[in-house]
């Protein structure tokens, strides 16, 4: 990617392809709401080639029978920004990303309540000579605050079409579409750039040599300040004409905000929300999980009953159905987890949490902003690692990536849930907190502590030469849009199910095969799995894992779950199911482990050691793949896998050895 000037973007007449329209704007300007309204939430999410910045594309139907593709770009404050997200926006607009054409038209969304800062980006867009339309959003909120924006005056001063809209209630969208169509059919050819630079200014000759978008390189700080000051002076002169404030009701930072970030209430509320989240994970998910689980068991027994007995039936009833079923069982919990994280994010609470935790995270060499990727990693490390691209400094970002997989993703939930349900009694502590939920919370806290310690260590090793900083906008506290949150839950569950029906299905077949072959000879008396490939693999590593309290069945399941943690459940259930073809023995894994626990062949110490192993182990191919892509380095990827596996081994060893002595 270069920052050299490209040929001007094609106009509609020149291009036979459908035009591409890019939506740009500051974070929290309502850009994504507008995108959803314009495309009817009918969009695809992909990544830009080579970089994992999310690319959302939808189809926009315009008047005059034009159809265009609309791209939602990451929020950005300036074309000259230094974070990965901001650089991607600039490069995409310039058409300097391989495989992406420069957009035919740029629609810049600006927030009417925050117009001065939003116009900074606009002034850079004008200088870069992009074909431009401005969507002036949040007109209703501005009006409520006593801010009156005269869009015609703004349009005349900037020499850019300005369309007032309210993206949330879909007002003004027809005008916007009409204006987009008009601009596509009859593009504005020339536009006055550098309006902010007085010709007589002492720095004018120096500044006019610098193309706006080429400002990425090292510029003299004095020049940066001088340019910004001149831009804002120009912006203020425009705002003084185009904006009138009548009976100003400035949005005093709400009382709620002050409480959420207060020294007294902030942290108790934060921990209360976390506790509520984990409590709900168990309580709300229980009924649907039991339902799914009983359907899976019934299907298995039914299949064995109706199908002629044979290899294929056994593959279905012992391998595929329980294998995939044992993972689908966790859909309710995953949905609830994503729902909570979605609500926290959409309401603006996550930024408050970042504010509360920055002091604490600073101590471990992380920044408050790393909190959002790390919290997302509690759902899944893959989006968590992707979210680190908003961290502008490289070492902060690398440290966050390396510790994100310790945060306890939802794929660990199946492992924890099964082990907890099998070995921890369903008691209530103090009459209210479920002991099982507390053990689960404990596992998450262990992972979080591990992440903190490792971050501190990485920070020591990677001792920074570069500057690190934390500047974050706090979006206003607002009522979360449940529709948007549910859409995200739906996307996440769908991708989880897609994984369950592809990767997990394939793993189930392979695991069943490994656990069923080679067949024991006629007069073999013992467990047939023991002499299968799976049994041999388990036995091979058994000496190494015996000090952890793991037997060969667990050993094989650990090997089998290398592609994805949840496969552990599938694998253990297959290994324990195969060879139990005595009719109605399709008990769920939990029941089987409970029995083993009572028999004494599956102790609490083993279960705890196993959970601790999964707290730290990097058993996830997708995480390794995304780490490789994001760090661009096999060294860091293998390093991450290595340190996590070593940590998992040592921690599980300690847990088991202490466990058998005190439990």
């Amino acid at each position, binding site marked *: 990617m270069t920052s050299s000037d490209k040929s001007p973007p094609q106009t509609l007449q020149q291009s036979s392809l459908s035009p591409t329209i890019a939506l740009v704007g500051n974070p929290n300007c309502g850009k994504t709401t507008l995108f959803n309204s314009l495309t009817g939430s009918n969009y695809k999410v992909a990544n830009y080639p080579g970089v994992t910045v999310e690319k959302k594309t939808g189809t926009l139907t315009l008047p005059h029978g034009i159809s265009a593709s609309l791209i939602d770009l990451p929020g950005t404050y300036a074309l000259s920004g230094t974070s990965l997200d901001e650089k991607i926006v600039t490069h995409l607009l310039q058409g300097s990303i391989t495989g992406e054409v420069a957009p035919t038209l740029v629609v810049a969304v600006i927030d009417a309540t925050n117009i001065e800062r939003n116009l900074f980006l606009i002034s850079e867009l004008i200088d870069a000579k992009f074909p431009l339309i401005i969507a002036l959003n949040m007109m209703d909120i501005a009006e409520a605050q006593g801010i009156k924006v005269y869009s015609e005056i703004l349009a005349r001063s900037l020499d850019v079409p300005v369309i007032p809209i309210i993206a949330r209630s879909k007002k003004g969208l027809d005008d916007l579409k009409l204006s987009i169509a008009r601009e596509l059919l009859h593009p504005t050819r020339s536009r006055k750039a550098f309006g902010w630079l007085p010709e007589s200014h002492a720095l004018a000759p120096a500044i006019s040599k610098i193309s706006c978008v080429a400002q990425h390189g090292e510029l003299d700080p004095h020049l940066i300040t001088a340019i910004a000051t001149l831009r804002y002076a120009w912006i203020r002169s425009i705002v003084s004409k185009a904006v009138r404030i009548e009976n100003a009701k400035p949005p005093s930072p709400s009382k709620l905000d002050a409480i959420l970030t207060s020294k007294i209430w902030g942290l108790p509320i934060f921990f209360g929300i976390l506790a509520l989240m984990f409590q709900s994970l168990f309580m709300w998910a229980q009924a649907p999980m039991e339902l799914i689980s009983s359907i899976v068991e019934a299907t298995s027994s039914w299949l064995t009953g109706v199908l002629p007995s044979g290899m294929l039936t056994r593959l279905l009833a012992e391998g595929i159905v329980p294998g995939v079923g044992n993972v689908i069982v966790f859909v309710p919990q995953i949905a609830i987890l994503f729902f909570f994280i979605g609500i926290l994010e959409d309401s603006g609470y996550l930024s408050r949490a970042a504010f509360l935790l920055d002091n604490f995270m600073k101590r471990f060499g992380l920044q408050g902003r790393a909190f959002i990727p790390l919290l997302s990693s509690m759902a899944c490390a893959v989006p968590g690692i992707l979210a680190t691209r908003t961290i502008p400094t490289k070492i902060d970002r690398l440290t966050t990536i390396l510790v994100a997989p310790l945060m306890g993703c939802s794929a660990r939930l199946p492992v924890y849930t099964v082990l907890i349900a099998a070995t921890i009694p369903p008691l209530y502590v103090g009459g209210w907190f479920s002991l099982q939920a507390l053990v689960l919370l404990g596992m998450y806290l262990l992972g979080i502590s591990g992440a903190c310690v490792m971050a501190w260590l990485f920070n020591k090793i990677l001792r920074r030469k570069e500057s690190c900083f934390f500047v974050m906008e*706090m979006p206003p506290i607002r009522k979360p849009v449940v529709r948007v949150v549910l859409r995200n839950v739906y996307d996440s569950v769908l991708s989880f199910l897609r994984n369950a029906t592809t990767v997990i299905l394939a793993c189930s077949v392979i695991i069943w095969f490994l656990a069923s072959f080679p067949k024991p000879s006629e007069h073999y008396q013992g467990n047939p799995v023991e002499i299968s490939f799976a049994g041999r693999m388990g036995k091979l590593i058994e000496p190494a894992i015996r000090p952890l309290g793991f037997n060969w069945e667990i050993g094989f399941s650990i090997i089998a779950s290398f592609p994805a943690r949840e496969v552990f459940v599938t694998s253990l259930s297959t290994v324990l199911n195969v060879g139990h073809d005595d009719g109605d023995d399709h008990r769920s894994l939990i029941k089987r482990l409970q029995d083993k626990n009572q028999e004494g062949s599956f102790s609490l110490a083993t279960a705890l050691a196993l959970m601790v192993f999964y707290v730290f182990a990097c058993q996830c191919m997708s995480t390794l793949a995304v780490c490789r892509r994001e760090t661009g380095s096999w060294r860091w990827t293998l390093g991450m896998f290595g340190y996590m596996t070593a940590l998992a081994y040592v921690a599980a060893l300690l847990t088991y050895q202490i466990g058998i002595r005190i439990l």
Partner: protein
Amino acid sequence: MEVITETVQTQKDLTAVQVGQRAIISAIKSCPTDLLRKLVSMGLVAGTEVRVTQRGFFGSPINIHLLGSVLSLRSAEAAHIQVQPLV
């Protein structure tokens, strides 16, 4: 940027501004380029009015209200921002 001499007595950096107090930015001083770009793009230039709305434990981070939005920054970043408090 040069500091205007007559306001020197009342110059402070942003870390010294009390919660609830308003101030006008007079300069951003000795600041790494990346941070400077970030600050100016978010409206932190000479002449912008800010109000401190919240502080974390030990005075960091500091939340400031400016141009219709709230920013959160650490005391280390706030120390680069020279302001003149308004009474």
